[in-house]
């Protein structure tokens, strides 16, 4: 059975080379559709990872109540000592964020100012690819750049650059499993407070680590309750909920792309179905000849279906891998209200893309396969 199926697959591959241009055009069309599908899936997946809270998440973001942009969220830095005393709080890090654009943008530049000694607590996952953390600590205007940020701007260790009115010296390039870290510049908090004219003692937000996920809600409530009557009241949310709330426009925009993905899937389905139908109609007599040679209805249907699946898979591999290469090379980051969403493909997207391409190829060839298999031999042999 396996050997027979393998022989049919080999025959289908040969048949596809029969009309090379037609097969190639179909594969390119499928690749274009699957490129779009994989890109949309990557955006959806990146958004999902950025906004869906998991059981391991223990970070809260304390932001100024009713403010959505870092430029307007101003909190006294001394809140840190008060927050630190709340039961269940493990770590508090004041952060100043400066961005070049609060609206939705594809070229967001975000500075994160953290106390120099707290960097490794705030982002323990970062790895320094070039330069050192020590040299960053020693120089007050030093910046550690996420690798995508550095690549996008063509920056390397020793360079100086100016953005959003802040001039920094590149002390290192970092890599992190957290996509956001790869798209920001870490600088000293006091430096950023002065350079951005926010002033010393003023921060954008506090990142608060709690002892366990169960403590997220109680600690958030307690923080907000404590500062409710202060001049700068707070709103505290889990980090991912903060992202989802703050970047609402971004979430809606990326959510809309789901329709583009569905459109791409429909286009691929139509394209493969059309190509396979043309193949079946052009080979009415040949399929009848194969049946006289002993090919049964199932074998004929399998031959047609395999051609459809091969077209779908070839286009799928090309499209998905192109999307993967494009997104990695471009390292696209969408920013909104100071938060950034890195559009990074992962293995899940690749597997889902290939599986979708396989399923579309199969689905598109079901009707043509059924049509080819059920035609009577004699009338097919008479077909012109």
């Amino acid at each position, binding site marked *: 059975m396996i050997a027979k199926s393998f*022989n049919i697959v080999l*025959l289908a591959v*040969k048949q596809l080379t029969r009309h090379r241009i037609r097969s190639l055009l179909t594969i390119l069309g499928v690749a274009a559709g699957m490129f779009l599908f994989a890109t949309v899936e990557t955006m959806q997946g990146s958004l999902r990872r950025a906004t869906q809270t998991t059981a391991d998440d223990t970070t809260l973001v304390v932001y100024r109540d009713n403010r959505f942009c870092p430029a307007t969220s101003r909190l006294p830095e001394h809140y840190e000592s008060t927050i630190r005393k709340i039961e269940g709080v493990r770590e508090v890090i004041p952060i100043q964020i400066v961005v070049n654009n609060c609206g939705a943008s594809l070229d967001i530049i975000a500075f994160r100012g953290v106390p120099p000694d707290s960097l490794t607590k705030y982002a323990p996952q970062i790895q320094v690819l070039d330069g050192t953390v020590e040299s960053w600590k020693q120089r007050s205007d030093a910046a550690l750049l996420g690798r995508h940020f550095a690549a996008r701007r063509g920056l390397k260790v020793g360079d100086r650059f100016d953005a959003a009115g802040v001039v920094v010296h590149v002390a290192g390039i970092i890599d992190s499993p957290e996509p956001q870290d790869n798209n920001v510049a870490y600088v000293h908090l006091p430096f950023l407070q002065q350079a951005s004219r926010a002033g010393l003692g003023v921060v954008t937000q506090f990142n608060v680590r709690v002892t366990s996920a169960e403590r997220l809600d109680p600690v958030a409530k307690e923080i907000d309750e404590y500062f409710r009557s202060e001049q700068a009241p707070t709103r505290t949310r889990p980090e991912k909920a903060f992202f989802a709330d703050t970047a609402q426009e971004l979430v809606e925009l990326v959510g809309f792309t789901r329709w583009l993905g569905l459109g791409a899937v429909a286009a691929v389905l139509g394209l493969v179905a059309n190509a396979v139908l043309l193949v079946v109609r052009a080979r009415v007599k040949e399929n009848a000849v194969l049946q*006289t*040679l*002993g090919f*049964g209805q199932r074998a004929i249907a399998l031959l047609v279906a395999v051609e459809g699946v091969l077209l779908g898979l070839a286009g799928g591999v090309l499209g998905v891998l192109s999307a993967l290469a494009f997104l990695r090379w471009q390292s696209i980051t969408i920013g909104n209200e100071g938060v950034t969403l890195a559009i990074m493909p992962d293995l899940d997207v690749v597997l889902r893309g290939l599986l979708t391409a396989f399923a579309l190829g199969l689905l598109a060839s079901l009707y043509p396969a059924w049509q080819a298999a059920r035609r009577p031999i004699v009338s097919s042999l008479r077909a012109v």
Partner: protein
Amino acid sequence: MSSHESFIRCRGVTKTYHKGNTPVTPLSALDLDVPRGTFLALMGPSGSGKTTLLNLIAGIDSPTSGSLHVGGVDIAKLKRGQLTKWRASHVGYIFQLYHLVPILSAFENVELPLLLAPLSRKERHRQVQVALELVGLGDRSDHRPSELSGGQEQRVAIARAIVANPALLVADEPTGDLDRESATQILNLLRELVREHGKTIVMVTHDPRAAAVADTVLHLEKDRLVEAADLNMQAA
């Protein structure tokens, strides 16, 4: 010859199909006996039912009524799937226009009927090579149909028909598209397959020269066999 010894035995075979709303009956209550190892030529005007009879004997069509035994099997009673399996091992079909798959080499075309057979790749290739040698094209196995002459293409088609070693070969005007010399070579090859390899061949032809090579010539006139040209053949 007794009908018990017939390789092909038709009794009361009728075939009716519809052209639009009009029923057409190319064969009506046909009786026919063909002994094993016979080269039978079927002649007759267009529309007389020659090809219909050939298709019924080859198992690619089924009679509307009657019984049709080939090699002891009543193929009229076989279902489509059973007929397919039966064809794969018992019949080789030779077409007027060869019907080779253009993208495949001569070797690959001949290999087609064996692709679904339970054979090892080595055994399959051996059988293909034997078939190609038999038709005199052992040295053309990697040529595609477009690189072969009409006569060579038909010889590849014959190799394809015999590669699974069927006892019965059916040929629908196998020389109709060939020049005189190529036609003669093909007919001699068919003759040799009967004489040397014991095949039974049923051939439809319009060409009296082709029919002359056969052991027996039958004429179909208005849905009936009207003439038996050989004493060993019993046609009613």
